[in-house]
C-alpha cells in the first residue's frame, strides 16, 4: 500500500509540478484525480475580448516555465522537502537517438539525439493522451449526433502538436487549418471548452458561434476552413512579429492536400523576399481527403516545395524528433535567416472527417500497421518504460485521470445550454456602437453589439 502511495505521490509531484508534497502520504489514499494541471492545458478564462493590441507579454507566464526544455525543477536551489521515498527509483533524464531528418538547402539539420527528462516525458505523454481521448470522445459524440457538421479528428497526429508546442514559446504564434482540436488544446484551451464548442454550447471557446473549425486563443489564430488560406495569414502574422521586433515566430500549418495551393507559393515568395520568421509546416498524413499524395502531387517531397526556402523532413510520429526539429527551425527564424519549410510525416487514424470512414482509399491493414508500429503515444511510453523513467502504474494513473477529465468535459459539453438567441447578431463589428440587423423579415429588427 505504501509502495502504491509513493508511486502515486511521485506521479502527482511530477504532474502538478509542485516541489513540495504534503507530508502524510496516507492523505492520498482516496485520491481520485490530480488537482487541476497548471501546464499547457490550463483553462483560458477568455475575459479579454478586444482588438489585438501591440504584442503582449505572454498571457500565460506560468506555462512558459513548463514549456521550454528545462532541467528538472527539483534540481534548482531552494527546492523544498521531498517525499520520504527518493526519486532515485526512476531515471530523471535520458538521451534518445532520433531519426535523422532529410534536409533541403541546409548545411546541417536538427541534432540526432534528444534529451528527455522524466517530467517532460510524463507531460508530453499526458498532453498527447488528452488529445487522443478528446478526439475519441468527439467521435463518440458525433455518432450520437450531439456534434454536427464538420468534425476533422486529429488522433494519430498528436506528436506534431505536442512536439511543436514543446519547441516554441507560448508567446510565439500558431495557425492551422481545420484539423485543429489538438492545437486548440496545446495552445491553452481546456478540453471542456473545446468539446462545448463542438456541441455548440455557450460555454464553448467561441460561445458556440464558430464550431469545430473556428476556435481561437491568444496567439492561436484558428481553425480555418478554407484550404490553404491560413498560410498567407501565417506569413502575415510573421510579418507582424518582424515589424514589432519582438523575436517571436509563427508556425503556419497546412496539409499535404493544401501543399499544392497557389497561395502557398505566393506566401513562400514574399516570406523569403522579406525574410519573415515563418515556419511553414506541412503535416503530411499521406491523404488529402480521399486522394493519396501520389495522386495529388507531382512532387511529394513537401519539404522541398519551398524551392529557394530551406526545408526539413521530420518523423512526425516521434514527439522528440518533432521537438528537436522545431527548436532548430525556430532558431533559424529568430536568427533572421528567413522562413523555413517543415514536413512532418504523420498519419491520421480517422478518415478525413466524420463523414469519411477512411477505408475506401486505404486498407484497414495499413491503419492497423501504423497503430501497432508507430503510434506516437505508445512510442513515448515504451521509451520511458524501457529506460526506467516511469512506471506502468504511473501511466495508468495518468490515463485514468485523463479519462475522467474528458468524461467530465463531455458531461459539461452535453449539459451546457445553447447560446441565447439574443446573442445571434452580436460580434459583427469590434469596438462599435450597437447596430440594427435585419432578421428574416422586414419586421425582425435584431440588435447587434460588439
Amino acid at each position, binding site marked *: 500500500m505504501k509502495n502504491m502511495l509513493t508511486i502515486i505521490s511521485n506521479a502527482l509531484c511530477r504532474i502538478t509540478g509542485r516541489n513540495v508534497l504534503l507530508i502524510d502520504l496516507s492523505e492520498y489514499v482516496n485520491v481520485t484525480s490530480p488537482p487541476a494541471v497548471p501546464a499547457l492545458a490550463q483553462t483560458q478564462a*477568455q475575459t479579454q*475580448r*478586444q*482588438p*489585438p*493590441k*501591440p*504584442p503582449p507579454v505572454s498571457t500565460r507566464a506560468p506555462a512558459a516555465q513548463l514549456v521550454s526544455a528545462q532541467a528538472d525543477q527539483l534540481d534548482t536551489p531552494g527546492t523544498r522537502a521531498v517525499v520520504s521515498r527518493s526519486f532515485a527509483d526512476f531515471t530523471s533524464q535520458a538521451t534518445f537517438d532520433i531519426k535523422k531528418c532529410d534536409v533541403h538547402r541546409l548545411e546541417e539539420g536538427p541534432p540526432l539525439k534528444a534529451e528527455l527528462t522524466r517530467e517532460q516525458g510524463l507531460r508530453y505523454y499526458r498532453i498527447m493522451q488528452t488529445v487522443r481521448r478528446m478526439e475519441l470522445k468527439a467521435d463518440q459524440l458525433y455518432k450520437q449526433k450531439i456534434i454536427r457538421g464538420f468534425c476533422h479528428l486529429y488522433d494519430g497526429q498528436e506528436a506534431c502538436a505536442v512536439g511543436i508546442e514543446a519547441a516554441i514559446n507560448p508567446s510565439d*504564434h500558431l*495557425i492551422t487549418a481545420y484539423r485543429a482540436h489538438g492545437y486548440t488544446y496545446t495552445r491553452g484551451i481546456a478540453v471542456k471548452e473545446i468539446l462545448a464548442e463542438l456541441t455548440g454550447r455557450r460555454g464553448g471557446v*467561441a*460561445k*458556440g*458561434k*464558430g464550431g469545430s473549425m*473556428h476556435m*481561437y486563443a491568444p496567439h492561436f*489564430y*484558428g481553425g*480555418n*476552413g*478554407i484550404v490553404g*488560406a491560413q*498560410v*498567407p*495569414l*501565417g*506569413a*502575415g*502574422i*510573421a*510579418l*507582424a*512579429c518582424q*515589424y*514589432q521586433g519582438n523575436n517571436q515566430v*509563427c508556425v503556419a500549418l497546412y496539409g499535404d492536400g493544401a501543399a499544392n495551393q*497557389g*497561395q502557398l507559393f*505566393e*506566401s513562400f*515568395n*514574399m516570406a523569403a*523576399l*522579406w525574410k519573415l520568421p515563418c515556419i511553414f509546416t506541412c503535416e503530411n498524413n499521406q491523404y488529402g481527403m480521399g486522394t493519396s499524395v501520389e495522386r495529388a502531387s507531382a512532387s511529394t517531397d513537401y519539404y522541398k516545395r519551398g524551392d529557394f526556402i530551406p526545408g526539413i523532413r521530420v518523423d512526425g510520429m516521434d514527439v522528440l524528433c518533432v521537438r528537436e526539429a522545431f527548436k532548430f527551425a525556430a532558431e533559424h527564424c529568430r536568427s533572421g535567416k528567413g522562413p523555413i519549410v517543415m514536413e512532418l510525416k504523420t498519419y491520421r487514424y480517422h478518415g478525413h472527417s466524420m463523414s469519411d470512414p477512411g477505408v475506401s482509399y486505404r486498407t484497414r491493414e495499413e491503419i492497423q500497421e501504423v497503430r501497432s508500429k508507430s503510434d506516437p503515444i505508445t512510442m513515448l511510453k515504451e521509451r520511458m518504460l524501457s529506460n526506467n523513467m516511469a512506471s506502468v502504474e504511473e501511466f495508468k494513473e495518468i490515463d485514468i485521470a485523463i479519462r475522467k477529465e474528458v468524461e467530465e468535459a463531455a458531461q459539461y459539453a452535453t449539459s451546457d445550454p445553447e447560446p441565447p438567441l439574443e446573442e445571434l447578431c*452580436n*460580434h*459583427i*463589428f*469590434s*469596438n*462599435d456602437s450597437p*447596430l440594427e*440587423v435585419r432578421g428574416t423579415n*422586414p419586421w425582425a429588427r435584431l440588435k447587434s453589439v*460588439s
Partner: protein
Amino acid sequence: MAASVRCFLRSGKNAVSALGRRGFHKSAPAAVQMMVRDALNQAMDEELERDERVFLLGEEVAQYDGAYKVSRGLWKKYGDKRIIDTPITEMGFAGIAVGAAMAGLRPICEFMTFNFSMQAIDQIINSAAKTYYMSAGFQAVPIVFRGPNGASAGVAAQHSQCFAAWYAHCPGLKVVSPWNAEDAKGLLKSAIRDDNPVVFLENELMYGVPFEMSEESQSKDFTIPIGKAKVERQGTHVSLVSHSRYVSHCLDAAVVLAKEGIECEVINLRTIRPLDVECIETSVMKTNHLVTVEGGWPQFGVGAEICARIMEGPAFNYLDAPATRVTGVDIPMPYAKILEDNSLPQIKDIIFSVKKTLNV
C-alpha cells in the same frame, strides 16, 4: 467627365471670389483646393504618423509612388518598413495583410484596381469579414482594403467592374465609397481608425478632380463617420441618391433641371454598408420621388437594395411613383469610346429618368 471638371473648377473659382469680396471685414477662411488623390495621400500620411502600427502594402505603392500616385512621397518619408511593395500576388499579399491585422498591426492593403481583388476575395470575406463573428468577439481584424473601383476610361471589360454590391452584400465588412476630396480624406481616416475590415472604393476618374476643402477638413483629426450619408443639395421634387463619381453627375443634372423648375435633392451616400437608410427615407418623405444613380450593373445592385429598403420602411407610403434606378448598362464594358460612353449613366439619362419619375 470633362464637363464635371469644368463645373467644379467654375464653382471653386466662384467660391474663392465670393470669399474675397467678404474679406474686408475679417480674415478670409483658409479655403484650399485639393485633388482627391492628394486628399487620400494626406489621410494616409496623417494616419501613418499618428499610429506606428499603420502600414501600407500593395503593388507599386512604394518606389513607384503608387500606380495612380496616390501614395506619392510616402515611401520616401516612412521607408521600407511602413510602405511595402509587393509582388503581383493578390491572394498572397491580401492574406498576409489580414494575418498582420490579426497579430496587432493596422494594414492598408491596396489593390491596384478592385478588379484584382477578385483574386483575393476569399481572404477579404472568409478570413477578414467573418472572423470577429466566428471567434465570438475574440479576434478583430482592423484592416482597410482600398483602391480604384468601377469604370475608368478605355480600359475595357476586365478592368471596369464596380464591386460595391458584391462587398456590400457581406456582413462583417464596412463598404465606403467617397465622392469628393473631403469625403476621401475624412472617410479614409475613419476607415484606418476603425477596428474592422473596411473596403474603401475609390474612383480613378476622380483622383485628379480638385475640390474645395473646408477649414475643418484640414485638421489632422478630421474624420467623417462611416455609415452617414450627406445631403449635397437640398431639393423638394425628387431625391437623387448616388455614390462616388455619379454624385457629380447628379449635381450637374440638378443644375439643368433647376432651370426647368425641378428642384432635386442630391444625396451622397458616402457609405454603402451600413447604408444610411434614414437619410434616404427622410428625403423621400419630403420629395415623394426617388431616383438612384450608380455606375454598377443593375441586377442585385446598390439601387436595387435602396428600392427594397424604401419599400420595407415608412417612406413607401410617401412615394408618388415607383422608385427608379439609373445604372450602368447590363453588359461587360466595351472598349470603343462611343460604346463605353453609352455603357454608363450620363447626365441626360438622369434628367430623362427624373422627368419620367415625375411624369413630366
